[in-house]
């Protein structure tokens, strides 16, 4: 067998040609994402480390970040409490109009964010359908931020939870019922724990979507400032170099939270 090594190598490449070509094409979109974020961080660190350090000591920046994280958490919690039962019903039952409901759930994804803000304002604004009767103030207040985040992020949780419930075979529930567990107990002891990974992933995506929202929030509540609004304000009032350090801090913050949540989701 003459020179098997070279021959092997050539035919191996031939064999997986499509995958190699695809990897090269796919690399563009990956590079685009990585480059954009890495360049921003490196530019800041290399050109203006002092500005970045100063930003980390700015309490108004941290206030905005914590407000973002907190309101996104509230929105996720509300989406979870109402969305998980809805997802379970959609996963288990077939009824007329189910396709319509599924469409409604996906609607917030397609509605432009500022349009969502305007729509929420007509409902929760001072003269809005709910806003005029409500004791809570929504406009330029925390409830307004939460409502905007809930609107745009709930679909992610509902769709992921639904997938999770669909992955639990109904026969497991049947067996639990036959062993004497009521529908509610079966849900708590069998269905919910087995879908918990999907539920956690859904909650993470929901939180991530909420914490990143700007358009809907800025319409209903410019103040108190969440982090995306703060960055926009600094960009408008002082330009790129003033908004970049906060952006870098936020990228790092989101990255850390995201990595932690993903690791948590994997461990379960």
């Amino acid at each position, binding site marked *: 067998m003459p020179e098997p090594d070279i021959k092997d190598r050539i035919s191996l490449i031939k064999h997986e040609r499509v995958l190699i070509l695809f990897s090269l094409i796919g690399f563009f979109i990956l590079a685009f994402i990585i480059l954009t974020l890495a360049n921003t961080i490196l530019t800041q660190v290399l050109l203006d480390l002092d500005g970045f350090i100063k930003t980390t000591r700015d309490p108004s920046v941290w206030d905005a970040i914590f407000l973002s994280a907190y309101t996104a958490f509230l929105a996720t919690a509300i989406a979870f409490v109402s969305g998980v039962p809805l997802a379970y019903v959609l996963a288990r039952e077939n009824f007329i109009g189910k396709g319509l409901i599924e469409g409604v759930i996906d609607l917030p994804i397609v509605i432009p964010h500022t349009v969502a803000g305007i729509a929420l304002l007509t409902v929760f604004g001072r003269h809005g359908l709910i806003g005029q009767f409500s004791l809570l103030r929504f406009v330029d207040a925390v409830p307004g931020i939460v409502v905007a985040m809930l609107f745009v992020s709930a679909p992610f949780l509902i769709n992921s939870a639904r997938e999770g419930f669909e992955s639990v075979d109904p026969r497991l529930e049947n*067996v639990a019922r*036959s062993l004497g*567990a009521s529908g509610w107990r079966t849900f708590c002891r069998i269905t919910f724990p087995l879908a918990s990974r999907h539920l956690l992933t859904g909650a993470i995506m929901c939180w991530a979507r909420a914490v990143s929202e700007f358009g809907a929030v800025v319409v209903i509540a410019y103040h108190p400032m969440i982090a995306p609004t703060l960055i926009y304000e600094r960009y408008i009032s002082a330009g790129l170099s003033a908004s970049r350090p906060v952006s870098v801090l936020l990228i790092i913050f989101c990255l850390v939270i995201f990595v932690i949540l993903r690791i948590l989701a994997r461990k379960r």
Partner: protein
Amino acid sequence: MIEIKDLHKDWREFSLKDINLEVEKGEYFVVLGPTGAGKTLLLELIAGFYPPDKGEIWIDGNEITRLPPEKRKIGFVYQDYWLFPHMTVEENVSFGLRLKNLSRKDIKERTEEIMDLLGILHLSRRYPDTLSGGEQQRVAIARAIVIEPEILLLDEPLSALDARMRDRLRDELKQISRKFGMTVIHVTHDQTEAMVLGDRVGVMMRGEIVQVGKVREVFTKPRDEEVAAFLGVENVLEGVIKEKVGELSIIDLGDINISAVSGIRAGERVNAFIRPEEITLSKVPLETSARNNIKATIRRVMNLGPVVRIELDVGLVAVTTRQSAEELGLDLDEKVYASFKATAVHVVRR
């Protein structure tokens, strides 16, 4: 007692049609039918997992047609086990007990007792995905019977197992159902399971129960050709083990005695199964290694193409080539000796 009256359910393109069935308390009832006959759906309706479109289900005189499954006291075992994957074997088995107001000690004791009975006590801390198919099905059975249901529904419980495990678990199922006196409905497509386990058998085809009766009755007198083709006709003989000589058992079938190889004790009531091809017919008694030489009269001769099916008055059916039949003069009312080896008899407890 389970009574099913005019039960009907449409399920996509399939229909379960007007099922009428009565199963006695403590009876082991086997529903035998090909894949797609609707056997699983029937069990799921009895268990209450789905509501029927019409018809009624009664247990011991109470209608339970619309009762939720958790109130029916019916154990259910699926072909694919469906153990709770996030629980250990012990947690799986004790699941039903933990839903009741029992002390921890009681739960532990009863769980361990059942696990011991099924030989899975050593697996108690393992998770389902580390178990073999046979072990998983033992856990599923233990989980179902630990709460002592009045009725046990078994949906092809042995079909996913390999041959050796299937035989072992089949015998154990019979013993367990005896021990607890449970009413069992066991669904299968396997004739041997039906013969070995069933007190009575219901043959199910295309959503209908087409024949119900004692195992022997159904297998020897299939209602029509379709049922006969599905069952294959077999010799099913009821008897009692009269005495044992070493490994050899003498079985008293009433009119005649036969010899068989089995480990069952004398005095026990048994069924003996003999495939018709195993029986050799001759005009004079033979001195051969076949232990059984039975004198009989030919009751019926059926031509089945290259082979001939011969029914004897002692309740045996033999199959032989047409030429042999002609050469030996095997005709109606002729006296013949039917011989078959002791190893050709398959003996199971009744």
